[in-house]
Protein backbone atom coordinates (compact mmCIF):
# COMPACT_ATOMS: atom_id res chain seq x y z
CA UNK A 1 0.00 0.00 0.00
CA UNK A 2 2.76 2.39 1.07
CA UNK A 3 4.90 1.43 -1.88
CA UNK A 4 1.99 2.09 -4.20
CA UNK A 5 1.46 5.57 -2.67
CA UNK A 6 5.15 6.43 -3.00
CA UNK A 7 5.11 5.19 -6.58
CA UNK A 8 2.10 7.38 -7.31
CA UNK A 9 3.76 10.42 -5.75
CA UNK A 10 6.89 9.89 -7.81
CA UNK A 11 4.78 9.39 -10.85
CA UNK A 12 2.88 12.63 -10.13
CA UNK A 13 6.00 14.73 -9.78
CA UNK A 14 7.51 13.31 -12.93
CA UNK A 15 4.47 13.07 -15.14
CA UNK A 16 2.30 16.16 -14.50
CA UNK A 17 4.38 18.43 -16.71
CA UNK A 18 4.78 15.74 -19.35
CA UNK A 19 1.05 15.06 -19.51
CA UNK A 20 0.35 18.72 -20.11
CA UNK A 21 2.93 18.87 -22.89
CA UNK A 22 1.69 15.52 -24.24
CA UNK A 23 -1.79 16.92 -24.74
CA UNK A 24 -0.33 20.02 -26.41
CA UNK A 25 1.75 17.85 -28.79
CA UNK A 26 4.87 19.55 -27.54
CA UNK A 27 6.80 16.38 -26.78
CA UNK A 28 9.23 14.71 -29.09
CA UNK A 29 8.05 11.47 -30.70
CA UNK A 30 10.15 9.35 -28.38
CA UNK A 31 8.87 11.10 -25.26
CA UNK A 32 5.28 10.97 -26.47
CA UNK A 33 5.64 7.20 -27.01
CA UNK A 34 6.96 6.78 -23.47
CA UNK A 35 4.03 8.72 -22.04
CA UNK A 36 1.56 6.67 -24.07
CA UNK A 37 3.11 3.49 -22.76
CA UNK A 38 3.03 4.78 -19.20
CA UNK A 39 -0.62 5.76 -19.52
CA UNK A 40 -1.55 2.20 -20.39
CA UNK A 41 -0.70 1.00 -16.91
CA UNK A 42 -1.19 4.04 -14.63
CA UNK A 43 -4.70 4.84 -13.49
CA UNK A 44 -3.59 8.01 -11.70
CA UNK A 45 -2.14 9.51 -14.85
CA UNK A 46 -5.18 8.44 -16.84
CA UNK A 47 -7.34 10.38 -14.41
CA UNK A 48 -5.05 13.39 -14.64
CA UNK A 49 -5.14 13.30 -18.40
CA UNK A 50 -8.91 13.20 -18.34
CA UNK A 51 -9.02 16.21 -16.01
CA UNK A 52 -6.79 18.22 -18.32
CA UNK A 53 -8.81 17.24 -21.36
CA UNK A 54 -12.02 18.37 -19.59
CA UNK A 55 -10.31 21.66 -18.90
CA UNK A 56 -9.26 22.00 -22.52
CA UNK A 57 -12.77 21.27 -23.71
CA UNK A 58 -14.19 23.81 -21.25
CA UNK A 59 -11.81 26.52 -22.34
CA UNK A 60 -12.51 25.59 -25.94
CA UNK A 61 -16.17 26.43 -25.28
CA UNK A 62 -15.31 29.69 -23.59
CA UNK A 63 -17.41 32.26 -25.40
CA UNK A 64 -15.88 35.60 -26.20
CA UNK A 65 -18.58 38.23 -26.65
CA UNK A 66 -18.51 40.67 -29.52
CA UNK A 67 -16.51 43.78 -28.81
CA UNK A 68 -18.43 47.03 -28.76
CA UNK A 69 -15.27 48.91 -29.67
CA UNK A 70 -15.64 51.35 -32.52
CA UNK A 71 -13.74 51.64 -35.77
CA UNK A 72 -11.82 54.64 -34.59
CA UNK A 73 -8.52 56.33 -34.68
CA UNK A 74 -6.83 58.76 -32.37
CA UNK A 75 -6.59 62.23 -33.79
CA UNK A 76 -5.82 64.10 -30.59
CA UNK A 77 -3.73 63.26 -27.59
CA UNK A 78 -5.19 63.83 -24.16
CA UNK A 79 -3.91 66.93 -22.46
CA UNK A 80 -1.89 66.71 -19.26
CA UNK A 81 -4.68 68.03 -17.08
CA UNK A 82 -7.12 65.53 -18.52
CA UNK A 83 -4.69 62.72 -17.86
CA UNK A 84 -4.27 63.89 -14.29
CA UNK A 85 -8.01 64.18 -13.90
CA UNK A 86 -8.57 60.64 -15.10
CA UNK A 87 -5.84 59.27 -12.84
CA UNK A 88 -7.31 61.12 -9.91
CA UNK A 89 -10.73 59.76 -10.70
CA UNK A 90 -9.36 56.24 -10.94
CA UNK A 91 -7.52 56.70 -7.65
CA UNK A 92 -10.71 57.91 -5.97
CA UNK A 93 -12.63 54.99 -7.39
CA UNK A 94 -10.16 52.52 -5.94
CA UNK A 95 -10.98 50.97 -2.61
CA UNK A 96 -8.29 50.91 -0.04
CA UNK A 97 -7.77 47.39 1.10
CA UNK A 98 -6.48 46.88 4.62
CA UNK A 99 -5.36 43.39 5.64
CA UNK A 100 -7.68 41.79 8.19
CA UNK A 101 -5.08 41.38 11.01
CA UNK A 102 -4.07 45.03 10.66
CA UNK A 103 -7.69 46.17 10.73
CA UNK A 104 -8.39 44.01 13.78
CA UNK A 105 -5.30 45.42 15.51
CA UNK A 106 -6.40 49.00 14.80
CA UNK A 107 -9.88 48.34 16.18
CA UNK A 108 -8.39 46.77 19.33
CA UNK A 109 -6.04 49.72 19.87
CA UNK A 110 -8.95 52.16 19.43
CA UNK A 111 -11.13 50.24 21.89
CA UNK A 112 -8.30 50.03 24.43
CA UNK A 113 -7.70 53.78 24.08
CA UNK A 114 -11.37 54.56 24.66
CA UNK A 115 -11.57 52.30 27.72
CA UNK A 116 -8.36 53.78 29.15
CA UNK A 117 -9.55 57.35 28.68
CA UNK A 118 -12.93 56.60 30.30
CA UNK A 119 -11.25 54.88 33.23
CA UNK A 120 -8.92 57.83 33.71
CA UNK A 121 -11.76 60.31 33.67
CA UNK A 122 -13.70 58.24 36.17
CA UNK A 123 -10.69 58.07 38.48
CA UNK A 124 -10.25 61.83 38.38
CA UNK A 125 -13.92 62.35 39.16
CA UNK A 126 -13.82 60.01 42.17
CA UNK A 127 -10.64 61.69 43.41
CA UNK A 128 -12.43 65.03 43.39
CA UNK A 129 -15.41 63.66 45.32
CA UNK A 130 -13.21 61.91 47.85
CA UNK A 131 -11.22 65.05 48.58
CA UNK A 132 -11.71 65.84 52.23
CA UNK A 133 -12.85 69.33 53.17
CA UNK A 134 -10.21 71.59 54.63
CA UNK A 135 -9.77 70.74 58.25
CA UNK A 136 -9.16 73.43 60.73
CA UNK A 137 -7.22 72.33 63.73
CA UNK A 138 -9.16 73.41 66.74
CA UNK A 139 -8.22 73.03 70.36
CA UNK A 140 -10.19 74.08 73.31
CA UNK A 141 -8.10 74.73 76.36
CA UNK A 142 -9.82 75.12 79.64
CA UNK A 143 -8.33 77.46 82.11
CA UNK A 144 -10.03 77.29 85.49
CA UNK A 145 -10.05 80.89 86.55
CA UNK A 146 -10.18 82.94 83.53
CA UNK A 147 -12.72 83.03 80.86
CA UNK A 148 -11.35 81.42 77.84
CA UNK A 149 -12.13 82.53 74.44
CA UNK A 150 -11.22 80.24 71.71
CA UNK A 151 -10.43 82.06 68.59
CA UNK A 152 -9.51 80.58 65.37
CA UNK A 153 -7.12 82.74 63.48
CA UNK A 154 -6.45 82.35 59.88
CA UNK A 155 -3.13 83.55 58.77
CA UNK A 156 -2.56 84.85 55.40
CA UNK A 157 1.07 84.70 54.26
CA UNK A 158 0.71 88.02 52.47
CA UNK A 159 -0.54 89.65 55.62
CA UNK A 160 2.37 88.27 57.59
CA UNK A 161 4.74 89.87 55.16
CA UNK A 162 3.00 93.16 55.67
CA UNK A 163 3.26 92.68 59.42
CA UNK A 164 6.98 92.03 59.28
CA UNK A 165 7.60 94.92 56.98
CA UNK A 166 5.78 97.34 59.19
CA UNK A 167 7.37 95.96 62.34
CA UNK A 168 4.18 96.32 64.24
CA UNK A 169 2.41 93.69 66.25
CA UNK A 170 -0.52 93.44 63.97
CA UNK A 171 -3.21 90.89 64.27
CA UNK A 172 -2.72 88.06 61.84
CA UNK A 173 -6.13 88.68 60.47
CA UNK A 174 -5.87 90.43 57.14
CA UNK A 175 -5.69 94.19 57.46
CA UNK A 176 -7.91 94.64 54.47
CA UNK A 177 -10.80 93.11 56.31
CA UNK A 178 -12.88 95.85 57.95
CA UNK A 179 -14.54 93.29 60.17
CA UNK A 180 -11.20 92.14 61.44
CA UNK A 181 -10.17 95.71 62.21
CA UNK A 182 -13.41 96.25 64.14
CA UNK A 183 -12.93 93.17 66.27
CA UNK A 184 -9.30 93.98 66.95
CA UNK A 185 -10.21 97.35 68.29
CA UNK A 186 -13.16 96.22 70.33
CA UNK A 187 -12.82 95.21 73.96
CA UNK A 188 -15.00 92.14 73.65
CA UNK A 189 -13.67 89.23 71.75
CA UNK A 190 -15.97 87.25 69.70
CA UNK A 191 -15.89 83.50 69.63
CA UNK A 192 -16.43 83.53 65.92
CA UNK A 193 -13.82 83.73 63.33
CA UNK A 194 -13.31 86.55 60.99
CA UNK A 195 -12.04 87.10 57.61
CA UNK A 196 -12.43 84.90 54.70
CA UNK A 197 -11.76 81.24 54.38
CA UNK A 198 -8.11 80.27 54.55
CA UNK A 199 -6.52 76.95 53.81
CA UNK A 200 -6.14 74.56 56.68
CA UNK A 201 -2.37 74.77 56.61
CA UNK A 202 -2.38 78.42 57.55
CA UNK A 203 -4.76 78.01 60.45
CA UNK A 204 -3.72 77.73 64.06
CA UNK A 205 -5.17 78.34 67.43
CA UNK A 206 -4.47 81.08 69.82
CA UNK A 207 -5.75 81.08 73.35
CA UNK A 208 -6.46 84.50 74.57
CA UNK A 209 -7.23 85.61 78.05
CA UNK A 210 -10.15 87.86 78.34
CA UNK A 211 -9.25 91.10 79.99
CA UNK A 212 -10.78 91.46 83.36
CA UNK A 213 -13.46 94.02 83.67
Amino acid sequence: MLAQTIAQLRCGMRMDRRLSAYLDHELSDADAAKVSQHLMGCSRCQKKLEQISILQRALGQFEIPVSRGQWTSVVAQPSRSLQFDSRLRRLCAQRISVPLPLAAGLVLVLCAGLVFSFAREERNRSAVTQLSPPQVETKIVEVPVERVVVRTVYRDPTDQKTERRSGKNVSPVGPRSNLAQKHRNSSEWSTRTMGTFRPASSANIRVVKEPEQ
Partner: protein
Amino acid sequence: MYVLTELANSVPDEDELPDEAIVARIGSGEKALFTLLYNRYRARTFALAYGMTGQREQADDLAQEIFLRAYQQLSTFQGKSKFSTWFYRLALNHCLNYCRQERGRKRTLSSSTEAQQPMLIELRPAEEVHEALLRQEIQQQIRIALLSLKPQLRLLLLLKEIEGLSYEEIAERLECSPGTVASRLSRARKLLARKLESLKGKI
Protein backbone atom coordinates in the same frame (compact mmCIF):
# COMPACT_ATOMS: atom_id res chain seq x y z
CA MET B 1 -10.89 61.77 -22.48
CA TYR B 2 -9.74 61.01 -26.00
CA VAL B 3 -11.04 62.57 -29.13
CA LEU B 4 -11.99 59.81 -31.52
CA THR B 5 -13.41 60.12 -34.99
CA GLU B 6 -14.79 57.75 -37.53
CA LEU B 7 -12.26 57.08 -40.20
CA ALA B 8 -13.92 54.23 -42.05
CA ASN B 9 -14.07 56.14 -45.32
CA SER B 10 -10.47 57.23 -45.23
CA VAL B 11 -8.99 53.75 -44.71
CA PRO B 12 -7.10 52.76 -47.81
CA ASP B 13 -7.75 49.37 -49.29
CA GLU B 14 -4.32 47.93 -48.57
CA ASP B 15 -5.05 44.75 -46.73
CA GLU B 16 -2.16 42.92 -48.28
CA LEU B 17 0.46 45.17 -46.80
CA PRO B 18 2.56 43.51 -44.07
CA ASP B 19 2.37 45.02 -40.59
CA GLU B 20 5.91 46.33 -40.68
CA ALA B 21 5.29 48.23 -43.92
CA ILE B 22 2.16 49.78 -42.46
CA VAL B 23 4.12 50.89 -39.40
CA ALA B 24 6.74 52.46 -41.66
CA ARG B 25 4.09 54.37 -43.57
CA ILE B 26 2.44 55.54 -40.35
CA GLY B 27 5.86 56.79 -39.30
CA SER B 28 6.13 58.78 -42.49
CA GLY B 29 2.88 60.58 -41.77
CA GLU B 30 0.02 58.35 -42.95
CA LYS B 31 -1.49 58.07 -39.52
CA ALA B 32 -4.86 56.90 -40.80
CA LEU B 33 -3.26 53.54 -41.65
CA PHE B 34 -3.24 52.68 -37.97
CA THR B 35 -6.85 51.68 -38.43
CA LEU B 36 -5.61 48.76 -40.54
CA LEU B 37 -3.54 47.49 -37.66
CA TYR B 38 -6.46 48.06 -35.33
CA ASN B 39 -8.65 45.98 -37.56
CA ARG B 40 -6.17 43.15 -37.75
CA TYR B 41 -5.49 42.87 -34.03
CA ARG B 42 -8.78 44.01 -32.62
CA ALA B 43 -10.53 40.65 -32.14
CA ARG B 44 -7.57 38.88 -30.57
CA THR B 45 -6.76 41.81 -28.32
CA PHE B 46 -10.35 41.96 -27.14
CA ALA B 47 -10.40 38.19 -26.53
CA LEU B 48 -7.26 38.47 -24.45
CA ALA B 49 -8.66 41.42 -22.51
CA TYR B 50 -11.93 39.61 -21.94
CA GLY B 51 -10.12 36.51 -20.69
CA MET B 52 -8.15 38.65 -18.27
CA THR B 53 -11.03 40.77 -16.95
CA GLY B 54 -14.07 38.53 -17.41
CA GLN B 55 -16.30 41.51 -18.23
CA ARG B 56 -17.15 43.00 -21.56
CA GLU B 57 -17.05 46.68 -20.57
CA GLN B 58 -13.71 46.35 -18.87
CA ALA B 59 -12.37 44.30 -21.76
CA ASP B 60 -13.41 47.03 -24.20
CA ASP B 61 -11.68 49.67 -22.10
CA LEU B 62 -8.58 47.55 -21.73
CA ALA B 63 -8.38 46.78 -25.45
CA GLN B 64 -8.82 50.47 -26.25
CA GLU B 65 -6.05 51.38 -23.83
CA ILE B 66 -3.76 48.82 -25.43
CA PHE B 67 -4.31 50.29 -28.89
CA LEU B 68 -3.81 53.82 -27.64
CA ARG B 69 -0.57 52.84 -25.99
CA ALA B 70 0.57 51.07 -29.14
CA TYR B 71 -0.25 54.17 -31.17
CA GLN B 72 1.67 56.40 -28.79
CA GLN B 73 4.70 54.09 -28.68
CA LEU B 74 4.74 53.13 -32.33
CA SER B 75 7.89 55.17 -32.87
CA THR B 76 9.76 52.83 -30.49
CA PHE B 77 9.18 49.86 -32.81
CA GLN B 78 12.52 49.40 -34.55
CA GLY B 79 11.74 46.39 -36.70
CA LYS B 80 14.08 44.02 -34.83
CA SER B 81 11.22 41.58 -34.32
CA LYS B 82 7.86 41.05 -35.95
CA PHE B 83 5.29 43.72 -35.32
CA SER B 84 2.90 41.10 -33.95
CA THR B 85 5.49 40.07 -31.34
CA TRP B 86 6.09 43.68 -30.37
CA PHE B 87 2.39 44.41 -30.19
CA TYR B 88 1.48 41.34 -28.16
CA ARG B 89 4.32 41.93 -25.75
CA LEU B 90 2.99 45.40 -25.18
CA ALA B 91 -0.56 44.07 -24.83
CA LEU B 92 0.45 41.36 -22.36
CA ASN B 93 2.42 43.79 -20.22
CA HIS B 94 -0.50 46.16 -20.21
CA CYS B 95 -2.89 43.37 -19.22
CA LEU B 96 -0.65 42.33 -16.34
CA ASN B 97 -0.29 45.93 -15.15
CA TYR B 98 -4.03 46.35 -15.35
CA CYS B 99 -4.61 43.22 -13.25
CA ARG B 100 -2.09 44.43 -10.68
CA GLN B 101 -3.92 47.74 -10.40
CA GLU B 102 -7.24 45.98 -10.13
CA ARG B 103 -6.06 43.55 -7.48
CA GLY B 104 -7.23 45.83 -4.68
CA ARG B 105 -10.75 45.90 -5.96
CA LYS B 106 -12.96 42.99 -5.11
CA ARG B 107 -14.99 42.43 -8.18
CA THR B 108 -17.58 39.76 -7.94
CA LEU B 109 -18.95 38.18 -11.01
CA SER B 110 -22.35 37.85 -9.41
CA SER B 111 -22.71 41.61 -9.57
CA SER B 112 -21.66 41.65 -13.18
CA THR B 113 -24.27 42.46 -15.75
CA GLU B 114 -22.55 39.94 -17.99
CA ALA B 115 -23.94 37.00 -16.10
CA GLN B 116 -27.55 38.03 -16.21
CA GLN B 117 -28.38 38.29 -19.84
CA PRO B 118 -32.07 38.73 -20.49
CA MET B 119 -33.81 35.72 -21.98
CA LEU B 120 -37.25 35.61 -23.48
CA ILE B 121 -38.17 32.47 -21.61
CA GLU B 122 -41.83 32.47 -22.57
CA LEU B 123 -41.09 32.57 -26.28
CA ARG B 124 -38.73 29.59 -26.21
CA PRO B 125 -39.41 25.91 -25.77
CA ALA B 126 -38.51 24.50 -22.37
CA GLU B 127 -35.63 22.42 -23.74
CA GLU B 128 -33.99 25.43 -25.32
CA VAL B 129 -34.33 27.43 -22.14
CA HIS B 130 -32.78 24.62 -20.14
CA GLU B 131 -29.92 24.33 -22.59
CA ALA B 132 -29.33 28.09 -22.56
CA LEU B 133 -29.31 28.17 -18.79
CA LEU B 134 -26.87 25.29 -18.64
CA ARG B 135 -24.58 26.98 -21.15
CA GLN B 136 -24.72 30.21 -19.18
CA GLU B 137 -23.87 28.36 -16.00
CA ILE B 138 -20.90 26.65 -17.63
CA GLN B 139 -19.60 29.96 -18.98
CA GLN B 140 -19.97 31.54 -15.58
CA GLN B 141 -18.09 28.67 -13.95
CA ILE B 142 -15.25 28.90 -16.47
CA ARG B 143 -14.94 32.65 -15.99
CA ILE B 144 -14.89 32.36 -12.20
CA ALA B 145 -12.30 29.60 -12.36
CA LEU B 146 -10.14 31.62 -14.76
CA LEU B 147 -10.31 34.74 -12.62
CA SER B 148 -9.28 32.77 -9.55
CA LEU B 149 -5.87 32.14 -11.12
CA LYS B 150 -2.96 34.52 -10.72
CA PRO B 151 -2.75 36.95 -13.67
CA GLN B 152 0.47 35.42 -15.02
CA LEU B 153 -0.90 31.90 -15.02
CA ARG B 154 -4.22 33.09 -16.45
CA LEU B 155 -2.45 34.88 -19.25
CA LEU B 156 -0.41 31.81 -20.06
CA LEU B 157 -3.49 29.62 -20.20
CA LEU B 158 -5.32 32.08 -22.43
CA LEU B 159 -2.40 32.27 -24.83
CA LYS B 160 -2.37 28.52 -25.08
CA GLU B 161 -6.05 27.64 -25.06
CA ILE B 162 -7.69 30.67 -26.65
CA GLU B 163 -4.93 31.95 -28.90
CA GLY B 164 -3.64 28.48 -29.68
CA LEU B 165 0.02 29.52 -29.56
CA SER B 166 2.87 27.04 -29.27
CA TYR B 167 5.23 26.94 -26.27
CA GLU B 168 7.88 28.60 -28.40
CA GLU B 169 5.61 31.49 -29.37
CA ILE B 170 4.39 31.99 -25.81
CA ALA B 171 7.96 32.00 -24.55
CA GLU B 172 8.88 34.62 -27.14
CA ARG B 173 6.02 36.88 -26.12
CA LEU B 174 6.50 36.51 -22.41
CA GLU B 175 10.30 36.63 -22.74
CA CYS B 176 10.99 33.37 -20.92
CA SER B 177 12.13 29.87 -21.87
CA PRO B 178 9.81 27.17 -23.33
CA GLY B 179 10.64 25.02 -20.29
CA THR B 180 9.26 27.71 -18.00
CA VAL B 181 6.16 27.91 -20.14
CA ALA B 182 5.67 24.14 -19.88
CA SER B 183 6.00 24.04 -16.10
CA ARG B 184 3.83 27.09 -15.49
CA LEU B 185 1.19 25.84 -17.88
CA SER B 186 1.14 22.50 -16.12
CA ARG B 187 0.70 24.29 -12.77
CA ALA B 188 -2.10 26.48 -14.13
CA ARG B 189 -3.91 23.45 -15.54
CA LYS B 190 -3.52 21.54 -12.31
CA LEU B 191 -5.09 24.40 -10.38
CA LEU B 192 -7.88 24.96 -12.85
CA ALA B 193 -8.67 21.29 -13.45
CA ARG B 194 -9.72 20.86 -9.83
CA LYS B 195 -12.15 23.74 -10.12
CA LEU B 196 -13.65 22.60 -13.36
CA GLU B 197 -13.88 18.93 -12.47
CA SER B 198 -17.59 19.40 -11.79
CA LEU B 199 -18.13 20.11 -15.48
CA LYS B 200 -17.46 16.47 -16.26
CA GLY B 201 -20.43 15.14 -18.20
CA LYS B 202 -21.80 18.61 -18.93
CA ILE B 203 -19.42 19.50 -21.73
